[in-house]
């Protein structure tokens, strides 16, 4: 039981959104649409239950990368970490769309050594995998993870240079530009997984302002064969969008993709079956915050 919680904890930290259904990671820009030739945005970044209230944990800002409209690498300024949220600024001086992204990749997994199950240390990367697993280890299970949390802000007219896919993890390709959203109008986005259209990807959209309404208002979507989804925004405001694969612990208690026996509170947890070592499972998560304007 205890170890199961430890595992769940590790998953929550590493998977950010996929496994941690309760906590939602997000970045919230002060503005997504800006005019003039020299503007600033302030971004709040947090992990919380409600959207977009900071009441749980600040988000790490160490690996946030700003990509400027021309593809150059920008920077975050005035970064600070509080008890519940982090905050930082981005100075916009070039016309077009900026990407502000926190991207992480790694490998998680476990192996048996001398009759004990050991877990790969946090921060293990694919190229260090060989050295991370000691000689004599058996029942090696690994899962490659890619997490991307990104937001877009536009100075002047929207541009699309920054949307060139990297081919790693889940990525968004605009059909409708994410800084050109108006309530009542349908917006279409394409999602890629490792550079290829991600068909049958579950995409969840939740409007912000949860604290002041009873219903979550969640919109559940599935990408088509081209990896595309269309969203019609019910009202203006901020929306949190999340897409992930492989977040559930397949083969574990609760069945495929289950939340580890969450449904069987009374029953003793079944021992976690050891699946045979195989090709790495793919786990990927994508998060963005979208601002939808009033018509």
């Amino acid at each position: 039981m205890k170890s199961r919680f430890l595992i769940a904890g590790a998953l929550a930290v590493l998977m950010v959104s996929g496994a941690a259904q309760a906590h939602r990671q997000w970045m919230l820009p002060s503005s997504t649409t800006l005019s003039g030739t020299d503007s600033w945005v302030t971004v709040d970044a947090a992990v919380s239950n409600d959207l977009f209230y900071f009441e749980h944990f600040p988000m790490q800002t160490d690996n946030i990368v700003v990509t400027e409209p021309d593809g150059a690498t920008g920077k975050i300024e005035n970064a600070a970490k509080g008890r519940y949220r982090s905050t930082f600024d981005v100075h916009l001086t070039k016309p077009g769309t900026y990407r502000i992204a926190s991207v992480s990749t790694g490998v998680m997994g476990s192996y048996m050594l001398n009759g004990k199950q050991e877990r790969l240390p946090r921060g293990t990367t694919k190229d260090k995998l060989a050295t991370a697993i000691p000689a004599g280890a058996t029942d090696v299970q690994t899962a490659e993870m890619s997490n991307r949390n990104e937001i877009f802000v536009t100075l002047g007219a929207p541009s699309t240079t920054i949307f060139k896919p990297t081919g790693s993890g889940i990525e968004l390709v605009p059909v409708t530009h994410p800084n050109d959203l108006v309530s009542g109008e349908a917006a279409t986005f394409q999602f890629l997984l490792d550079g290829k259209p991600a068909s049958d990807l579950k995409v969840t959209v939740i409007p912000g302002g949860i604290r002041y309404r009873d219903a979550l208002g969640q919109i559940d979507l599935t990408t088509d064969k081209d990896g595309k989804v269309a969203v019609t925004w019910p009202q203006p405001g901020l929306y949190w969008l999340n897409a992930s694969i492989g977040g559930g612990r397949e083969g574990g208690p609760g069945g495929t993709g289950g939340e580890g026996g969450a449904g069987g509170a009374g029953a003793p947890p079944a021992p976690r079956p050891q699946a045979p070592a195989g090709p790495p499972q793919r786990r990927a998560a994508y998060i963005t915050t979208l601002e939808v304007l009033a018509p």
Partner: protein
Amino acid sequence: MQISHRLALTGAAALGAAGTAAAPAIAQTLNLSVNIPRLSVAEYHRPYVAIWIEKEGAAPRTLSVWYDVDKAKGEGTKWLRDVRQWWRASGRSLSFPADGVSGATRAPGEQKIAFTAGKGPLGALGPGNYTLIVEAAREVGGREVLRLPFAWPPKPGATVKVQGSSELGAIALTFGK
């Protein structure tokens, strides 16, 4: 209906051609009267106002933008995006100050502005159904968008009127020669 429309169309085309060749003084104008309401609020700022025209299948055309043009380093442009619908339709692809389009914010009361067909920001208008849109956004205040549909060329004596309810008052579009 369609026949009279066609007649008006050919008539205007002929008129336009004759007008440009012989006497530019008779070029057609759009005369717009925009009433900015006097609001009794603790903190009043004159509204940013954008006026533009749209026609299905054509790029929107900005006719006039009233904003804080005199602020140092063009800082007034920072708030242009608050005129949201105009910003999306047309503003964000312009550079400011825009020649013949930008102007200072205007005081409450009736503001008159005229645009000449074939000239300036209005340019040449092909026949068809247009919408003239007036959008006002006020610092620490609200926003209002009003739409005035009109046919081009206009029928003699045609007027379009619309009444605002918060950030804009009465707006009237008349056509002159």
